[in-house]
């Protein structure tokens, strides 16, 4: 085992790092939902890609780093290393579980009857009108969901600004600067928002989110 990895796994914060890696893997899977992926759930309610949960991906990542199948980068923290491996494992598993990626190869000939090279004659990869429409719908769903979330915190200006800042991709330090609040206050907003998490984690579209918000649980 890489000595730097060994040292990282022996650090006292290792257990929290694994927990954060699990949150990251789970979030990565949930992000795919907003790209139209329809995941399955385990009996315990864990979101899955194929038949694997975030837990499976994290333990597989640790195993691969330990046995050297994936290189451990000692210049980066253990969490970054784990997240990098789980990202690629999840992406590969998702591709495997997608049923739309298989295109049969057929031998084609040119006008003179000579076999044509499928690589050189391949058309450029562009979205079909259907795919584009579906992509636009998913993005519109995301926008409507954010709007509904913000509206559900009516009267809580700080939370509304926080959600808005998150939705455009601001980081913790940027949010702190933007809103003129301390990092600890940003963390408190995060804690408050994730208490609400069940309402938007795992919803697959705007209607579902709206229903959950109306249920008020």
């Amino acid at each position, binding site marked *: 085992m890489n000595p730097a990895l060994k040292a990282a796994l022996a650090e006292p914060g290792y*257990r929290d790092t694994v927990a954060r890696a699990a949150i990251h893997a789970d979030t990565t899977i949930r992000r795919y939902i907003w790209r139209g992926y329809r995941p399955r759930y385990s009996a315990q309610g864990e979101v899955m890609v194929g038949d694997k949960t975030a837990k499976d991906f994290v*333990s597989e990542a640790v195993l691969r780093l330990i046995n050297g199948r994936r290189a451990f980068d000692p210049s980066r923290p253990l969490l970054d290393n784990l997240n990098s491996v789980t990202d690629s494992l999840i992406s590969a598993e998702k591709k495997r579980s997608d049923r739309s990626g298989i295109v049969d190869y057929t031998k084609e000939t040119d006008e003179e009857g000579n076999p044509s090279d499928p690589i050189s004659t391949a058309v450029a990869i562009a979205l079909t009108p259907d795919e584009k429409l579906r992509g636009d719908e998913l993005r519109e769903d995301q926008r409507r969901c954010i709007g509904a979330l913000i509206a559900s915190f009516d009267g809580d200006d700080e939370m509304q600004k926080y959600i808005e800042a998150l*939705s455009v991709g601001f980081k913790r330090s940027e949010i702190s600067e933007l809103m003129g609040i301390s990092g600890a206050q940003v963390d408190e907003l995060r804690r408050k928002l994730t208490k609400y998490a069940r309402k938007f984690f795992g919803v697959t579209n705007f209607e579902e989110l709206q229903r959950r918000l109306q249920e008020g649980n």
Partner: protein
Amino acid sequence: MTNDEPGPMENLLNGLDQQSDALSSDQLRIELQDRGIDIDALLQKMDAIIAAHDKHERLAWMRVADEKKESLRIAETPGAQWSDQKPEHVLIAFARFLKAGGPERALAFKNKGTLSLQDMAAILEADERLQKRTQGKGTDST
């Protein structure tokens, strides 16, 4: 927004993920519970993976020692004394030896003319010694 750019909900999830750095152990546990993730089961699995690997590393010297021992055993085992065997056994073994070497070996020995039983036995013994030495080297290099 292009298709590769994350949408607002994806950004929100990303942001929450990045801010998990600030969560305490208890907060992490609660958040994972909300997502249906049993962190204790995961940590248990991690511990088992690490322990198994540590054990594998600890015992690595034993495997190397076993391999060396085996290669020594092969090298030290006295070869079969073909000269003491029954003539029909020597003939069968020599025929097998010729067959195993392919047409080139068969041709080489054909050109040598008729071999005595003693010659055949000596050739078989020399071949076995060579084989053992090669095997010993092969084991050493792994």
